[in-house]
């Protein structure tokens, strides 16, 4: 999820404040597919991500591109408005009740010596790693990926050499949305979904990408691991109710001593 946020910001330079809400929609999509076709959420990743890619591309082309050159507060207001609309649309469609998906392996774990590894979490981690690897390969080895990187590195230069920057921005937003879709499908096995779930995960994604470095894909992965580890260790050795305090403490430290994030570049 944080990967999607990082990719979008890294290229389009727009911070997607509707990120968590988009993930919530993906979670609902996974529950609907499961209820209708008994489709395992991990198998639902591909169709949901494809739909989200199209949705994200259209959203960038029709809604966000006109705001690219406008002041940042206009972009902020636009995406907050989108987030509010999405939450309320979900409330209208699905009501406030929590929904979940129940699959056989959901409560199972692998036993490695004395360590228990939650199956659903492990599969979710594998999906995240696969998505990150696919994105990395796309940006590194394909012409379209290279063109997108060129747009991110030098907006004016990319235009001068004839790249259709706005088209690549739309593609990038689509890719970010597809990442969110994958995250939503995996997440639905770990968390029950309700419409107001989004803001919590938007905030969490922000903390992760700020720690890892806005715009850096590896930074997003590293940030996720660091935030998860800091919360788990703080919960284990200090007090579970204080674990968020430590992730935010880590965020403040990063902002103080390395504002661009651990793997981010100075802007």
């Amino acid at each position, binding site marked *: 999820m944080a990967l999607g946020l990082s990719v979008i910001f890294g290229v389009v330079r727009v911070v997607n404040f509707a990120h968590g809400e988009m993930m919530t929609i993906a979670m609902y999509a996974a529950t609907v597919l499961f209820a209708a076709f008994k489709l395992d959420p991990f198998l639902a990743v591909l169709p949901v991500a494809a739909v989200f890619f199209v949705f994200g591309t259209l959203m960038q082309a029709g809604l966000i591109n006109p705001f690219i050159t406008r002041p940042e507060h206009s972009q902020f207001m636009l995406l907050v408005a989108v987030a509010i609309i999405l939450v309320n649309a979900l*409330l209208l469609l699905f009501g*406030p*009740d929590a929904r979940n998906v129940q699959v056989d392996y959901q*409560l199972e774990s692998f036993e490695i010596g004395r360590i228990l590894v939650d199956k659903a979490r492990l599969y979710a981690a594998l999906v995240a790693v696969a998505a990150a690897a696919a994105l990395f390969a796309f940006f590194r080895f394909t012409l379209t990926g290279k063109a997108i990187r060129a747009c991110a590195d030098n907006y004016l230069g990319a235009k001068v050499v004839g790249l259709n920057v706005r088209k690549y921005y739309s593609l990038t937003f689509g890719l970010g949305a597809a990442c969110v879709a994958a995250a939503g499908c995996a997440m639905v096995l*770990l968390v*029950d979904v*309700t419409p*107001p779930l989004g803001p919590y995960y938007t905030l969490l994604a922000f903390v992760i990408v700020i720690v890892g470095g806005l715009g850096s894909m590896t930074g997003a992965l590293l940030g996720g691991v660091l935030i998860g580890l800091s919360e*788990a260790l703080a919960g284990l050795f200090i007090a*579970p109710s204080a674990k968020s305090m430590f992730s935010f403490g880590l965020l403040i430290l990063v902002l103080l001593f390395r504002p661009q994030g651990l793997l981010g570049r100075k802007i």
Partner: protein
Amino acid sequence: MQRRQFNKALAATTALAAVHPFGIVRAQAQRLKVGVILPRSGVQGFIGQSCQKGADLAPGVIKQMLGVDIELMNADWESNVDTARTRAERLVQEGAHVLVGPFDSGAAAAIAQVAEQRGVPFVINIAAAPQITEQGYKFVFRNFQTAPDIVRNGLALIGELFQATNTVPRTAVFMHVNDTFGQAMAKGIGAFMQRLTQLPFKIVDTISYDPAAKDLTVEVSKAKASNADFLLLVCRLNDAIILRREMVKQRWNPMGIVSPGSPGMYEEQYFKTLGKLSEYSISNVPWYNPRAELTKVVDKAFLKQNPKDKLVFHGLNVGFTFEAILIAADAFKRAKSTDPKTLADAIRQTNIASKMMLGDPIKFNAKGQVEGIGSACLQNLNLTPTVVLPTSAATAKPVFPMPGYKKA
């Protein structure tokens, strides 16, 4: 509008304005407007909706019982204390004669301030933090046990449970939500555990957590590591579900999960979401008297409004929400007025013997608190919350340790 019509309208408005300051117009109201504030969405949404069922059936039942007309003004505080305050303000502005709700101590404290400032009676359906009725408020009333009462009754029932099942657990790990209610309960347990020396167990670790937590992996692994015989739990609904699942994932099978008095494990959603995993969880909570006449009336009305549902899954929420509205309606009938002060005075004089929930008649003490509300030990058996103690009200025998118990 013609000049004569205008003059008539002006004269009528002037007359109305002249009597209004003395409360004459309000006092003659034929209908009691009850502002019902519940968390119908957000993290406590399920419980709020469960309470709402009690509010929804109240006007019909109370009309039959007392002949009082009630208009419900429903508001959702979205499981957010700040929203609770603003919703209460709005209900008062819109003409609510009395406020009822909110199933949460934090929200109750916020609404109580509004009720006092605006001089509107507030009947708390469910909220246990003792300080709410310790502030010297004149318009705040509570027909629910305080946290110390819940703890005292809950711990006493735990003692009875061990006696009834011939078990002697030596250790417990105490997990609790860290909201206003959870903190009050933790404080109560800390105090009573020192006094109740007849209880055979010691608390070996205390773990607090956020009721809105999305993940309780660390908390459960810490609890499991304590190697305690059973889990003493003060929870809400969503966290109870997450916690139970996490216990299965981490293969932690203590002797039992026992709540000394908190929501969550007897709620319909707990059964719906967890299925068989919901079995054998125990909650010692204020509960309804299945033999009371009023319970039968409410049960009938509940079934009529919710044909696919059962009162037993909403017992505490429906019961106390219904009784809160009943208290307001009974006071309105006696006061024959919606004047806030007269209504508050009438609520203070309440004496309802024919009630639904276990315990003594509904009478408020000088602080606005009802005393003598009873508790029952509920165990989830056959996917239904079942009274297993006290023996006089029990419909089944308690199962403890729960099947599958394995020393960690």
